[in-house]
């Protein structure tokens, strides 16, 4: 069962969005998030929804995948909604016990919830259409200008690469240890939360030991393959900006300009 796990939430595809340079996609996501904070009314939000809907349509990733990303933060959205609903002063619309709902509160509640939802969907579009490895390469490349300021761009990217590579290995290791402990009568399923947490100790200790052993072996294998940090290193798949990347860049600038214009003029 562990062999089937997918890394990240990449949705395989060959769409225009999938094939964009990862750097462009990361920048686009950041621009989109910034634009969401530029928006101050529902017209702005509407433009943002339209832009996102267009990109999602081009990416051909089913909407259900997008919405899946909302599940873990549903509570946060609800909390923001309720908080805004009751806490903003203004013209009173309704009164429930000691709580009052104002017109401004209702407006802000919907506005903030919409902003949050767009924020999540916008960023999950990035991870849905970009392979974790390309994402890593993109982050390394985007951070490399800051290397002079002491940002360890290559090291961060290498750590992400190795982490991605070893997730399945460590899961397999965990599975092995659990089975070995179960074979000797360990019980992970019964008892209350504290008991169950305690029963995890005999898994975690050997898992940590084996993680350190793996790290040591990997370090030696990397050294044997002449790894000496980012210096002198070249890449097989050097990233190259293509026409579609520039087109995306222009669309992105137009979108941001539109959002700013909407805020200033309307």
């Amino acid at each position, binding site marked *: 069962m562990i*062999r089937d796990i997918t*890394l990240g939430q990449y949705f395989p595809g060959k769409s225009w969005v999938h094939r964009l340079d990862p750097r462009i996609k990361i920048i686009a996501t950041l621009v989109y998030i910034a634009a969401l904070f530029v928006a101050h009314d529902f017209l702005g939000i509407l433009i943002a929804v339209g832009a996102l809907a267009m990109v999602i349509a081009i990416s051909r990733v089913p909407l259900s995948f997008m919405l899946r990303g909302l599940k873990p933060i549903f509570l946060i959205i609800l909390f923001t909604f309720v908080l805004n609903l009751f806490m903003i002063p203004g013209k009173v619309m309704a009164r429930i016990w000691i709580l009052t709902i104002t017109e401004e509160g209702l407006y802000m509640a919907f506005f903030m919830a919409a902003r949050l939802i767009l924020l999540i969907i916008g960023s999950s579009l990035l991870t849905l259409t970009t392979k*974790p*490895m390309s994402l890593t390469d993109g982050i390394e490349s985007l951070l490399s200008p800051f290397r002079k300021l002491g940002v360890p761009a290559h090291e961060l990217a290498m750590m992400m*690469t*190795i982490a*991605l*590579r070893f997730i*399945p*290995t460590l899961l*397999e290791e965990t599975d092995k240890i659990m089975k070995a402990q179960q074979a000797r009568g360990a019980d992970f399923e019964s008892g209350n939360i504290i008991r169950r947490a305690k029963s995890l100790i005999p898994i975690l200790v050997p898992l940590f030991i084996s993680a350190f052993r*793996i790290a040591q*072996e*990997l370090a*030696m*294998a*990397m*050294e*044997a*393959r*002449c*790894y*000496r940090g980012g210096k*002198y*290193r*070249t*890449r*097989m*798949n*050097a990233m190259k900006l293509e026409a579609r990347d520039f087109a995306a860049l222009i669309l992105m600038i137009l979108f941001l300009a539109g959002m700013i214009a909407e805020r200033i003029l309307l």
Partner: protein
Amino acid sequence: MSEMIRIENLVFNYTREQDDEEISAIRDVSLTVNKGSFTAIIGRNGSGKSTLAKNINALLLPSSGVVYVNGYDTAKEEDVWNIRQSAAMVFQNPDNQIVSSIVEDDVAFGPENLGVEPEQIRKRVDDSLKAVNMYQHRKKAPHLLSGGQKQRIAIAGAIAMRPECIVFDEPTAMLDPKGREEVMSIIKELHQEGITVVLITHFMEEAAQAERIVIMDRGKIALDGTPGEVFLHRDAIQEMNLDVPLAVELSWRLRRRGIDIPEDIISMEEMVEFLCQYK
């Protein structure tokens, strides 16, 4: 024939962590490996064979003595990358030496570290993957492959550095019989293509496929010679808790019963052929 590796009076000591005791893993070993040869180094656990392999790759440095790889002294820090490029290494556990979650990116890791041009890396990666017969799996994730396939990826990663010599440190120890066979046949192919092969193993059947067998025992070289020469010392080998190949054992027993079997017979096929013609 020129020398690939020259080891002179190598001693390697380390401090055991449990009790701070000084242990000599290698005690005065001298060994020369010629370019283009296929040498197997065999010994049981703790004989110092893996430590010897790591000394060849400058992953460990001699306590005393010298190790030359392709003319470079491993103790000289400025030559370490030349050494690791000319004598690549493949380790025991296929999982713990693969760096990337895409097969072809992993094979590219070595040449990328060497600063090879991108188009050249692409060519090397494709060639290496074809050499180990894994080209069709180049886009896959390593954790979906079998042990033997993963080990072949690790070998491709070593070949992509275009080394003259590859040191295999028990490459088949964690594989099933099928994976073991796949890896052994690739090792033999690489040797035929001119790469110097040093195979560290504890399977005598694998060592018997080399041109030369070096048996290590307690940090020293106990026996050294062609398989035929080495297997003449059947009793000494068994005293070191190692097995001789079945054919060698059989010929020893037959010889004891007065049947004259030539000493260069070490494989089952040769034995069968000889016995069928025996009158």
